[in-house]
């Protein structure tokens, strides 16, 4: 029951004065719903007549005022080595006419953007904006908000307007709203009949919904779980033209891409973020060219699972508010969740609703602002192979990075971009750390051209590293393939360090590369071999005549039969696997054959970790953010994630 004193009444005349006063104010920019052709859109209000509270639905949700389509995150000067500042021009705003479903969508977005790693731009915009919501008067043909319980709301707004015929009621949601109302309007307390009228109006609107979902939203997560392999995804996505319009118009799609743009004279540049869509093929593409959701069926399914299962598992809400925008925008008309979910209504519910999610939060120090990197200097460069180099980097504030083996950093080169790199050096008290870099993309190729003394930007350490505690007093079987050796080196050097060596039992290191010349850290490997209770086996896929190689030839799996099963205390062995995507399932099979339990296996996975703070969406494996819950995972936790080892 709403407190009656929180509800005020405005005569039509006073309502008009209220809006006009708001528009005339000089502190806030006033945004409202306006007509755009036969549709509606939020835009700058210039006069009272423009405001259309009878709108059915706006083309884009008000999300654009909190996460704009194109947004400058920072500006930098390229004439100096490292001169960057976060862009901060956030105007106080009043937005009038937001429907309840969009209010709820914003509350959901708060959960994602204001979690442990707060997006400071979003936060400031939220703090600087007053939401004057409006009860729905006209129901969009495609909306199914009544099925999602998002057609009305009693919170999330500063003020809520309801047209009750000859006057408006104003429900006060916050102190901020109350102050605005007192300052700009002449109101009276609502009386009993007025409040009754609110209910009547809402009930009348409720009856106008043509579209309904046959499946209650509480059941979406449990129904989807067992329909992961349903034919519906392929059948419907066959018609998908992959335009991602569904995600662009969605109030609960928050994924974005980040790009660098420089001025034509190369003197300055900006880093912008712009909306991205998981329906686009390149969304999951990493530097080496791998695409992790190659089939459009997988991308199509991802969108529904994210809304109906992944976000519910993570935050407890179904991330669809029934606005119907995707249904309007989708040309082949396959995007409408009400239709997809209704068609699954007769299916069995599963209790295992969180199957595609791993609860594992990174304990990160809150950095503010989260997007702006710290200044660092390249201290030493060592050539590893023709296309790989090791960089020693030092933070200019001379503070140690404070990382754990298995964590990563985002490296920024202004004008070029930002890319994630696993840390290759063990934890250290010194401000220096190392990353190894294979030259495959724009950032890596620029890094390869840089010299000692050059400045770069660092964000991190990010993600979850290896669980060192779980490894203590255990035997270790450390398998790496190709560039998987980079993060593995961090762990090996930590374990073999004299200070720590007694904490671990026997160490077996298995390492494979394609060719002998691609085996890196060979000198260090010789040292590792000399360590007590440590064996180190190497293999190459191929060795041609004339190439110097005295060790095994064959895939990494050929090294496993050499391990004496009778000597291996498999239950007390922790296995760690890092390598190219293709390697995992084969190596894991070998480990299982050795009797190593799944919970003793740790893997580090590569995905497109763009933001590194669990927002931009690119690195998702089902409901899991690799940048946040990973990149290191316990195998038992993720063995049921279909996208993990495909």
């Amino acid at each position, binding site marked *: 029951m709403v407190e009656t004193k929180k509800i005020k009444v405005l005569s039509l005349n006073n309502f008009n004065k209220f809006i006009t006063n708001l528009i005339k104010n000089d502190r806030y920019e006033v945004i409202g719903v306006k007509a755009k052709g036969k549709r509606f*859109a939020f835009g700058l209000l210039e006069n009272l007549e423009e405001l259309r509270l009878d709108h059915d639905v706006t083309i884009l949700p008000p999300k654009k005022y909190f996460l704009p389509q194109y947004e400058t995150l920072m500006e930098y000067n390229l004439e100096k080595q490292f001169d960057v500042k976060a862009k901060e021009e956030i105007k106080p705003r009043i937005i009038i006419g937001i429907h309840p479903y969009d209010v709820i969508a914003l509350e959901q977005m708060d959960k994602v953007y204001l979690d442990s790693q707060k997006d400071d731009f979003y936060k400031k915009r939220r703090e600087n904006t007053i939401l004057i919501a409006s009860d729905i008067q006209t129901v969009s043909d495609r909306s199914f908000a009544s099925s999602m319980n998002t057609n009305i709301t009693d919170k999330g707004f500063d003020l809520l307007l309801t047209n009750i015929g000859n006057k408006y009621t104003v429900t006060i949601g916050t102190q901020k709203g109350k102050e605005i109302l007192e300052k700009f309007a002449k109101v009276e307390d609502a009386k009993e009949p007025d409040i009754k009228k609110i209910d009547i109006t809402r009930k009348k609107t409720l009856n106008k919904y043509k579209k309904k979902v046959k499946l209650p939203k509480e059941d979406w997560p449990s129904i989807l779980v067992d329909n992961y392999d349903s034919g519906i995804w392929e059948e419907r996505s066959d018609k998908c033209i*992959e*335009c991602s319009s569904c995600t662009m118009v969605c109030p609960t799609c928050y994924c974005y891409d980040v790009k660098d743009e420089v001025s034509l004279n190369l003197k300055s540049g900006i880093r912008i973020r712009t909306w991205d869509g998981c329906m686009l093929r390149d969304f999951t593409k990493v530097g080496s060219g791998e695409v992790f959701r190659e089939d459009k069926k997988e991308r199509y399914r991802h969108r529904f699972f994210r809304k109906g299962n992944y976000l519910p598992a993570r935050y407890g809400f179904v991330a669809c508010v029934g606005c119907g925008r995707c249904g309007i925008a989708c040309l082949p008309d396959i995007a409408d969740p009400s239709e997809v979910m209704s068609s699954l209504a007769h299916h069995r519910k599963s209790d295992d609703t969180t199957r595609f999610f791993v609860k594992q939060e990174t304990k990160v120090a809150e950095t503010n602002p989260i997007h702006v990197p710290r200044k660092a200097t390249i201290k030493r460069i060592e050539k590893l192979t023709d296309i790989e180099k090791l960089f020693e980097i030092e933070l200019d504030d001379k503070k140690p990075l404070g990382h754990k083996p298995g964590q990563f950093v985002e490296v920024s080169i202004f004008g070029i971009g930002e890319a994630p790199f696993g840390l290759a050096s063990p934890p250290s008290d010194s401000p220096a750390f190392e990353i190894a870099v294979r030259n495959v993309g724009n950032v890596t190729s620029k890094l390869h051209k840089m010299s000692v003394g050059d400045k770069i930007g660092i964000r991190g350490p990010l993600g979850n590293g290896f669980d060192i505690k779980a490894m203590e007093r255990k035997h270790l079987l450390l398998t790496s393939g190709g560039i998987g050796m980079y993060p593995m080196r961090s762990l090996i050097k930590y374990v073999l360090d004299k200070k720590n060596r007694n904490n671990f039992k026997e160490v077996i290191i298995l390492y494979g590369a394609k060719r002998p010349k691609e085996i890196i850290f060979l000198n260090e490997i010789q040292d590792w071999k000399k360590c007590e209770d440590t064996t180190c086996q190497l293999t190459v896929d191929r060795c041609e005549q004339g190439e110097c190689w005295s060790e095994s030839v064959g895939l990494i799996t050929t090294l496993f039969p050499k391990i004496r099963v009778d000597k291996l205390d498999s239950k007390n062995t922790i296995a760690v696997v890092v390598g190219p995507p293709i390697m995992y399932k084969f190596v894991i099979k070998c480990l299982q054959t050795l009797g190593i339990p799944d919970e003793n296996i740790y893997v580090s996975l590569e995905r497109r970790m763009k933001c590194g703070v669990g927002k931009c969406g690119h690195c998702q494996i089902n409901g899991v953010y690799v940048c946040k819950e990973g990149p290191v995972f316990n195998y038992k936790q993720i063995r049921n994630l279909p996208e993990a080892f495909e």
Partner: protein
Amino acid sequence: MKQKLRVAIFDFADCEGCELEIADLEEEILDLLEIVDIVSFREVMKEHSDNYDIAIVEGSIMRPMDEKRLRNIRSKAKILVALGACATIGGVNKIRNQWMHDEVIRAVYGDAPIQGNELFDVFKTKAINEIVPVDYYIHGCPIDRDEFKHVITALALGKKPEIPRYPVCVECKKNENICQFELGAYCLGPITRAGCKAICPTHNSPCEGCRGLIKKSETECVWEVLERYNLSYEDIRRRCTMYNYGKEECSVDE
């Protein structure tokens, strides 16, 4: 600062409108000259040099003499950039490929004595990547100036330019346009490469596909859309003729 890249701009069969877009950078031309040396640009300067790193080539290839000249340019350039629809996909010049060669000649030149004159010795229109390998593309009719700047600055910084591989709809939606299909028009946006900021639909004109198609127009999903909006395959074929004749799928490989 290290040695500036030497850039030469050439044109073949076209309206030179894309070159004009470069010339139209106005005072920004000075910024451009700070990062590269323009050593040849017939539309705006008299000087010419055959010593260049980057060749920016505008226009379609129609004649053996053009082909020879293009091959010569390619052999001198370290990087070759196709500029504008005529160069990247053949563009409007390909419309004539739908008629018999003799018919076209007769329709245009009538009985004029052109026999044996190599200037009139034309073959079917080709995009430049049908003759020589192209490193980078600046799409559009005309090009988008910001995209030109993006490509030039990327090359000057030694990075690979990022040209979208998703459809115009993405940018159109960001601009909060009413969908052209909703307005009863037929738009090539869903199958055309973005990067133009959806300029046409934003100005209430359906997309004509000048940046090349990223999806075959005869795929099932496109049919589905046509059917829903009561459009026929003939409609889409006609619409594609303007810029994408004979090229149902853009062959641009980036």
